[in-house]
């Protein structure tokens, strides 16, 4: 027993307090702790909008009738379209689309109103620059119901047969949890996961490689420390950093973005702890594999980018092909996003959350085990 020192809490405390001291003196860490969440939150929180409105559109109107004008007004009032140009020829419209000066060209052909009143079902052509489907999709989808209701007033009395008839079904849709479709309600809680992933993996990713590069590793290894003491000792201080970030984001979410907080914040805090540990463990494991700080940063990015893209933060998770979903399920961020959105927007409880939580726990355990195994006790 003497020969193999047992895990020592005294040594663990020593390492933790050393890390705290170093953290306090390292301005960059401090900046990362508060600067990154604040900047990203304001930047992305205000900037990202998945329901783009006021898209520039050009109109080509060859018809002077009232109905054509009614439809144009309706489009303008929907706030999806801003008519910025009037063009005389189709050629002119194409050029504007090609150069990206407008997103849509609305073409109302000659005799549109006359044909409409005759019941000839005239064509109204909308040409869209669909290079970015997300930018045009919602606006285009709004058109059909918009036109149906827009003409209700014009098509009365004798003309009422021309009006859109209600179908055989009375369709009702309840958009739960975010009925006003406010992007921030989705983005801001998601940002909590993204910011934690980025900073936590990065901070600990540098932890061991830094000791190696500065030559202090030789010293640390010449002392009777155990790998688990060093690794855990390096993780613990940054849990606090993670919590500071979570608090900053939650306060901003509540006061700046008015994100609803339906569920238990305490539950969120517990989940956040697990998620923070999972990311710190991932970082520290990279740190044991990487030869230098640059490699550690590269590894962090190697995970960070797919995490963001495949977790459902940027794009709808269910929109991805099956294999991509399988890959996505592997990232702790994917599960954390579901949990945070679930707790804040849906008021999920412990049982709802545990379905996702165990996967983060599993991830943390596996990754940390790899890290402890990989941590070299010698300089070889």
């Amino acid at each position, binding site marked *: 027993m003497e020969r193999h020192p047992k895990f020592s809490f005294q040594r663990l405390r020593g390492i933790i307090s050393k890390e705290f001291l*170093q953290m306090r*003196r390292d301005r960059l860490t401090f900046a990362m702790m508060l600067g990154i969440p604040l900047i990203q939150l304001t930047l992305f929180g205000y900037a990202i909008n998945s329901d783009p409105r006021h898209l520039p559109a050009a109109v080509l109107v060859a018809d002077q009738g009232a109905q054509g004008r009614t439809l144009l007004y309706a489009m303008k009032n929907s706030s999806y379209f801003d008519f910025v140009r009037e063009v005389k020829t189709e050629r002119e419209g194409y050029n504007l689309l090609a150069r990206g000066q407008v997103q849509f060209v609305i073409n109302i052909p000659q005799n549109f109103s006359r044909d409409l009143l005759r019941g000839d079902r005239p064509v109204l052509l909308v040409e869209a620059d669909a290079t970015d489907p997300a930018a045009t999709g919602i606006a285009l989808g709004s058109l059909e119901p918009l036109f149906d209701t827009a003409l209700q007033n014009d098509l009365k009395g004798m003309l009422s047969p021309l009006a859109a008839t209600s179908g055989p079904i009375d369709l009702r849709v309840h958009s739960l949890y975010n009925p006003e479709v406010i992007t921030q309600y989705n983005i801001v809680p998601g940002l909590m996961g993204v910011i934690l992933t980025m900073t936590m993996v990065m901070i600990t990713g540098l932890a061991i490689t830094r000791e190696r590069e500065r*030559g202090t590793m030789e010293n640390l290894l010449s*002392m009777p420390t155990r790998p688990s003491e060093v690794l855990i000792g390096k993780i613990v201080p940054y849990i606090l950093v993670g919590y500071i970030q979570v608090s900053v984001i939650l306060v901003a979410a509540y006061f700046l973005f008015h994100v609803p907080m339906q569920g238990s914040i305490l539950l969120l805090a517990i989940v956040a702890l697990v998620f923070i540990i999972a990311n710190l463990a991932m970082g520290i494991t990279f740190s044991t594999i990487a030869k230098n700080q640059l490699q550690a940063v590269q590894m962090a990015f190697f995970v960070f980018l797919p995490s963001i893209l495949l977790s459902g933060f940027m794009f709808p998770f269910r929109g991805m092909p099956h294999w991509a979903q399988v890959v996505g399920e592997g990232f702790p961020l994917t599960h954390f996003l579901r949990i945070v959105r679930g707790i804040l927007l849906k008021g999920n409880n412990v049982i709802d959350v545990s379905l996702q939580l165990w996967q983060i726990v599993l991830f943390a355990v596996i990754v940390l085990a790899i890290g402890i195994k990989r941590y070299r006790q010698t300089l*070889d």
Partner: protein
Amino acid sequence: MKNGEDVIEVRGMTKRFGELTAVDHVDLTVRTGEIFGFLGPNGSGKTTFLRMLCGLLRADDGRGKVLGHDVIAESEAIKREVGYMTQRFSFWEDLSIEENLDFVARMYGVKNRRQTVQESVEELGLAERRKQLAGELSGGWKQRLALAACLIHRPKLLLLDEPTAGVDPKARRDKLLADGTVDEVISRVGLTTWEVKGPDLAKLADELRKTSGVQQAVAFGNSLHVSSTDAAELERAIRPFRRDAYEWQQIPSGLEDAFISLMEERSPHHGKTS
């Protein structure tokens, strides 16, 4: 461990880095109370050997005991009883002297930690600088800190890797090392050294080297060190060179002088062995 017992007793210690064999079957026995020094040019495996002794590198071959513990299997136990001072300063530059020592004391589970750290700070004359960050210290003070740190747990064996590297020659003589280790090494070599200052030292050195009675003439910055193990013979040999333009002065031999002397002795050119 009683006096006279072997502190280090290793046989056939070997370390290879790919193609290169850095340490090739080294046997070493060091008894309690002995001071043992390695001399050798860069890359001759001094550091590698020390690292193997304290468990920082895994030996490819060899066996033996350090402080009664198996050098391969019980490196953890060895680490607890050895004070190892690395060649390159390896303490945390963003921690103060006191914080560094406190951390080391904690890692070794030192009893009465605070008191021990205070004593250690005072013993090495670091008291006034205890709050200073290690990174802001000059080379000599860094060495003191490193020495204080590797002594703090009262090790039974000290392994010092180039303890005077990065320290200016004056400070080296400044009783930096406990018990005059370096002085002892130098005095064993028994070298007499004269320092010469003046014009065109390179030419003078060439002439001196051809003179019998002069064992070595080595340039040190803007001066020349002329040495021999036979003081009387040396004095006779240099007499013709003590001209007006040159300023001759007998100085205590330094570690470098002693080192070069030992290296020359072993080189096949001289054909002598000690």
